[in-house]
């Protein structure tokens, strides 16, 4: 009788404790890790140039300047993409859904992209037009025409 009562009592106490801890863990388990809201936001207003270098007569090496853009989560990016090459090029940030149309070289080959860096991480930006010599699209070094957007999560 006493053993049975104490056993049932222990079960009740443990059951109550289990219930309490389970209830405590439900809200935090359902939500993803909570990111604090950005402390401070800025606008990064940059000119992005598509250009190439190389010896005369040799295939050119094409790149973006800057080849790395760093922002904090919450910052607004305003990128004026400009193509100074002979071929048509584009600009696309993978994972951000941000891209230009095909840009011809010269003053008409410009497009401004404005967006909020709302996701932290490292994102590659690259030319989004495959190389096609017949149509004057991009260049043989298409695959290496890349840069990186780094979006930092702000502490606190």
């Amino acid at each position: 009788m006493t053993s049975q009562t104490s056993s049932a009592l222990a079960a009740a106490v443990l059951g109550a404790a289990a219930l309490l801890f389970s209830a405590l863990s439900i809200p935090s388990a359902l939500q993803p890790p909570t990111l604090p809201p950005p402390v401070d936001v800025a606008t990064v207003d940059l000119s992005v140039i598509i250009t190439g270098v190389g010896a005369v007569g040799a295939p050119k090496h094409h790149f973006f300047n800057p080849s790395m853009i760093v922002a904090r989560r919450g910052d607004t990016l305003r990128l004026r993409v400009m193509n100074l090459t002979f071929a048509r090029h584009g600009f696309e940030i993978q994972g951000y859904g941000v891209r230009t149309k095909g840009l011809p070289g010269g003053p008409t080959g410009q497009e401004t992209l404005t967006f909020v860096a709302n996701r932290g991480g490292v994102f590659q930006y690259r030319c989004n037009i495959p190389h096609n010599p017949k149509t004057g699209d991009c260049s043989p070094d298409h695959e290496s025409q890349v840069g990186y957007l780094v979006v930092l999560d702000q502490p606190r």
Partner: protein
Amino acid sequence: MNRGSSGLATFALVLSGLALIISLVVYISRPRAETGAAGPAAAPTTMALSMVVATFSGQGVFAHRWYPTMMIVREGDTVDLAVANPDEFSHQLELTGYDQKTKILNPGDSARIKFVADRVGVFAYQCALPYDPAKKHCTPDHPEMRGYLLVTAR
């Protein structure tokens, strides 16, 4: 009857003990926001860099940009820039948020900017010399000569 009730109580005890262990594990390993206390902060360092007026041209466009166009340091780091102007027009580097400015850099000139990055944030640097073709001051793309220094919190 008495034995069956005792067996049920023991079963309940084991079950709730198991539930307690599981919920404790879940509670302790629940996702939490980063505290940032990953370890001792690295000592402040000096980022010494060469900063130049870079020219990009092609298809009738002449672009002048500060190169590097993007810099990142941590709060407390020292920024030490050797600024040079190899262009054929005069320029002047200005980092507004830190009250830093070189002298007017005529073609071939260089200057040095050195300061401690003691404020966190995003700071633009640009050419402080307005476009004036008569004086060979800067170029028509003067407003585009802009880069950013990002200072992160320690």
